[in-house]
């Protein structure tokens, strides 16, 4: 068992651990911080998988901006809310129905997973099991070319959509402030 193998397995383990913590922690601020750690580990995994651009953008956007946004929203709420524990009132109907739904979806997903895995092996053959060794420069050039030439329309539309979303949020808050005044 090589060191690289152990590091990658540990990364995947941390990824799942932080995801579970983000869902299960009672205090919202801790849950958000755990989500940020999960995004950071995911960025490292992207880097390991030869996707440096995706890793950097994931680190900037999900582990940076979105987490800051979460914390800002929590800080705008009443002082008790961000540290408040969730209600622990035991609602058996929700738990049972949620658990049943979870089990059914899990069974379906395992079936889809196995089927898609078999299908992938049919298409790619032995290529799926071998380690990846590719020159690093080609990846950077290919991804940059793909983003700026092949998918330039998507990038422009995305920029416009984000701009419109920002305008919409600004409008919502402006109306809210105007109503109060």
């Amino acid at each position, binding site marked *: 068992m090589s060191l*690289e193998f152990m590091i990658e*397995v540990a990364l*995947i383990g941390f*990824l*799942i651990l932080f*995801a*579970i913590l*983000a*869902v299960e922690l009672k205090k*919202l601020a801790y*849950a*958000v911080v755990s989500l940020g750690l*999960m*995004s950071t580990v*995911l960025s490292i995994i*992207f880097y*390991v*998988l*030869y*996707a440096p*651009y*995706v890793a950097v*953008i994931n680190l900037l*956007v999900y582990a940076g901006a*979105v987490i800051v946004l979460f914390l800002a*929203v929590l800080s705008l*709420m009443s002082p008790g809310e961000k540290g408040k524990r*969730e209600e622990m009132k035991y609602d058996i109907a*929700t*738990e049972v129905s*949620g*658990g049943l739904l*979870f089990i059914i979806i899990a069974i379906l*997903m395992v079936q889809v*997973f196995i089927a898609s*895995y078999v299908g*992938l092996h049919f298409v790619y053959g032995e*290529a*799926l*099991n071998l*380690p*990846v*060794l*590719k020159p690093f420069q*080609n*990846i950077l050039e*290919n*991804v940059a*070319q*793909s983003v700026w030439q*092949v*998918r330039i329309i*998507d990038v422009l539309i*995305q920029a416009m*959509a*984000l701009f419109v*979303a920002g305008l919409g*949020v600004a409008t919502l*808050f402006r109306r*809210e402030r105007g109503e109060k005044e």
Partner: protein
Amino acid sequence: MIGLNWYLGAAAILYLIGLYCLATKRNIIKLIIGIEILINAAHLNFIALSTTTVGLDPLARSFVIISIGVGAGVIALALSLTLLIYRHYGTLDVRKMRRLKW
């Protein structure tokens, strides 16, 4: 480098965690966290499946980059709506939001 199975399995487990969060939690912030975990699982799947010895698919990576931007927009909009809902109802519990009239 470990095989593709590990990454696909991790993505499937992340997806299940996100679905579990959406099915059982009642706090809006927790639901948004669940949505973000689902998006991250999909991104991991894309990147893992585009990394093979046949070649590294740049199209999948650029698609993930665009999806990250769109996902951040979705999360930002959801958080701003959460803030408005909190000011209107005074709670983050989704069960208590039964009136749609503002």
